[in-house]
C-alpha cells in the first residue's frame, strides 16, 4: 500500500540523506520525494511516497523520530490532507492540433508555459491523480518530455470532508 509521509527536518546538511536511507536500507523504493522550505527558514519539509506495509512503515517512522535532525513525522491520510503536485509536459503540437490540446488543457486548468513551432509545454498544478488523468489524455498526442515535482501535502485546515469536491488551482 502506498503511504504519504510529511516529515519536517532541520535545514541542515545530510538531513535528507538520513531520512531516505531508512527506506533504502529495508529495500523500499521511494516513489516520489519533494523537498522544500517551510514558513521557518531553518526547517525544511520532505513529502515522500512509499509503497510498503503498515508494520514496516510504523517501524521506519519510529526510526525517523530518532534522527536528530527530524522534528516531526506525520502520515498524510488521503481524506485528511491537501495534496498538490506540479507537472511540466512538453508535447508534440503541430498548429492543426493546438485547438484540441488547448481545449483539453482548459478542462484540467493546465496553463501553456511555452509554445514552439511544433511543440508546447503545459504546466499543470493539481491533485496528483488529476495530473495522472491529464497525462493519460494527452499521451496519444506524443509526450516529448515530462517532469513532475512529486507531491507535497499539508493536513487539512477544515474538518474531514467525506464528499470533498475536486478542487483545482
Amino acid at each position, binding site marked *: 500500500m502506498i503511504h504519504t509521509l510529511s516529515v519536517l527536518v532541520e535545514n541542515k*546538511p*545530510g538531513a535528507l540523506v538520513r531520512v531516505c536511507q531508512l527506506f533504502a*536500507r529495508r529495500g523500499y523504493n521511494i516513489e516520489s520525494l519533494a523537498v522544500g522550505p517551510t514558513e521557518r527558514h531553518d526547517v525544511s519539509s520532505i513529502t515522500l511516497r512509499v509503497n510498503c506495509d503498515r508494520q514496516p512503515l510504523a*517501524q521506519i517512522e519510529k526510526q525517523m*523520530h530518532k534522527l*536528530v535532525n527530524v522534528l516531526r513525522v506525520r502520515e498524510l491520510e488521503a481524506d485528511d490532507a491537501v495534496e498538490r503536485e506540479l507537472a511540466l509536459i512538453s508535447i508534440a503540437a503541430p498548429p492543426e492540433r493546438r485547438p484540441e490540446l488547448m481545449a483539453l488543457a482548459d478542462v484540467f486548468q493546465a496553463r501553456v508555459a511555452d509554445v514552439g513551432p511544433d511543440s508546447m509545454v503545459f504546466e499543470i498544478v493539481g491533485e496528483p491523480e488529476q495530473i495522472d488523468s491529464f497525462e493519460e489524455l494527452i499521451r496519444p498526442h506524443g509526450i516529448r518530455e515530462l517532469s513532475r515535482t512529486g507531491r507535497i501535502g499539508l493536513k487539512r485546515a477544515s474538518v474531514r470532508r467525506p464528499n470533498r469536491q475536486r478542487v483545482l488551482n
Partner: protein
Amino acid sequence: MNGADAVLRSLEAEGVEVAFGIPGGAILPVYDAIARGTTVRHVLARHEQGAGHMAEGYARASGRAGVAFATSGPGATNLVTPIADAWMDSTPLVCVTGQVRSHLIGTDAFQECDITGVTTPIVKHSWLVQDVEEIPQVLKAAFHVARTGRCGPVLVDIPRDLQEAELDFRYPDSVDLPGWRPPVRGHARQIAEAARRIASAEKPVLYVGGGTLNADACAELLDLAEAGRLPVVTTLMAKGAFPETHELHFGWPGMHGPKWSNLAMNTCDVLVSVGARFDDRVTGKLDAFAPGATVVHLDIDAAEIDKLRRADVPVVGPLKQILADLAAEVRRLRAAGDAARTEPWLRRLEGWREEFPLRYGNGGQLKPQRVLESLQELTAGRDDVVWTTGVGQHQMWAMQYLLCDRPRTFITSGGLGTMGYGIPAAIGAKAARPDATVVCVDGDGCFQMTSQELATAVLEDLPIVTVIVNNGYLGMVNQWQSMFFEERRSHVHLTHAVPDYAALAEAYGAKGFTVSDERELDEALAEALACGRTAVVDARVDAHEQCFPMIPAGAAAVEMLEYEERDGAEAVSA
C-alpha cells in the same frame, strides 16, 4: 585559541579523562594541542580499530562515553568497525576525526574520505563542522546525543583548517537540539498495567538485556526481582547486570545458552523484556519463541517495541525509573496477594538446572571449557576482575562458565560479533578501572586480528592478561562446517603453533606462557593473574571440542542440540 584547543577544552569541560587514538595529517593541530597541555590522557593505539575498541571498552567499564581520535581517510575508515560495533551494542562513543581542509573537500584530496557519509547508517548522529565557532556546541551536542536516550556512537569530523582557525571559546551550558527528545519518564498507567501482569503471573521471567547496564538500573532490577520473587535470565550483553550467584539468576538465553535458561524463556507465561531487543541469537525461530507468553516490554527506545515481537504491555522510558516504580508496585501487589506465587515455578527452574547441567568431555587433551572453569575458580569471590572477550566459541564458553556478580565486569561484542574486540577493549577497561585485574578471554583467531595492541598495553602501562583458548582453528566456523557442511573444513585451520604466542608476547615486552595440560594451565593462570604485567597465556586445547548446547540458526529453541559424548570420553558436569 584555535579550533584544536577548543576540541581539548570541550573534552575537558565534558570531564573526559582518557582518549584513544593515532595522529595523522588532518588531525595534527589537535595533537599539537594535546602536546601543549591538557588534562585528557591520550593513549596511543597501534591501529585506529584498536583505538575505537579501547574507547568502547572504556565506555562499557566506566559508564561514561568513550572518546577516539583518528585522522582523515584511512584513519577514519579504520574506526568504522568500532563505530558499527558501538551502534549494535548501544555503547556511548564519541569519535573525533580530522578531515582535509575545507576547500579540498570533494576534490579527492590526499587521505580524503567522506566519513560522515560512510558512517551515516551506523551513528546516532554525525557532524561535519562547517565553522570554527561551531566546535564547542557540536562537541557538547555530540556527548549529549551519545549518552542520552538509547546510547550509541556519534562522529565529529573537523576539517584541518578549522582546527587552525581562531575562535572565542565559550562552552555552552545546554544543547540546542529541537529534534532530539528521548523519553524522560515511563507512563504511570503502563507501569501499573505491567506490574499487574507481572504480579499475577505464575511463570514469569525477567529477560534482561544490555540496556539495563546503560540505564544504570541494576540495583532497581535486583529490587524488582526480589520484590516479586522473579527469575532472571541475562543476555550476553547483560552479563553482570544481575548477580550470577544469586538464587534468582537462571543463566543466559539463546543459541549457546544452557538448556534450563532456554526452557525458562520458552515456558514462561509472562516474559518481561528489560532493555533487551529479541535478537535472533536469543530467540531462534521467532514464531516459536516463548509461545503463549504475554510480553511486557520495557525500553528507552520506542523503535524496539513491536520490532520483532509484539508487546502486550509496552513501557517506553528510562529503565531506572520504570524498574523502581515497578518494584514498588509489584511489592505492594504481592504483599496484598499471594506472596509465594512464583515458588512452584522457581522450584521447577531449579529442577531443570539440575537435570540439564553444562557438560563437556573429560580426558585426552586439555579442554577449552576447563580453561574457563579454572579462570572462574581462580577469581571466584573477587570484586576487582573485569572480563573481555573476542567472538566465537571461547566467548560462548566464557558466557557459560564465568560468573559475574557485578555490573560492567563482562565486556564483549554482542551484536556485531567483532573478532579482535577483546584485547583493545581490555586496554580501554583497564584505563577505566586501573584498580581491576582485566582479563581478555580470546580465541587464537581473534588474537591475531588485534594483537598489535599488546604494544599499547605494555607501553601505556595498562597491563592486561590475555588467555588464548587456542584450538588452532577459527573454532566456531570449524564447528559450523563440521555440523552443517558435512565436515568439509574450508580455510579454518590456523594451527596451534604459528605464531608462537608466548614468544610474540615476550617480543612485545609482555610475559608469555604456553600450556597444554591442566597442571600447567592452573600454574600459568595463577602467575599471570598475579604478576601485574601484561601477560599472554597460550592454552593449547582440544581442536575439535564443540560448543554446546546449541540452537541451530533459524531453529526453535526447543530444537536445541546438546553435548554428545565422543570417543568414549567421560562427560563432566559443571
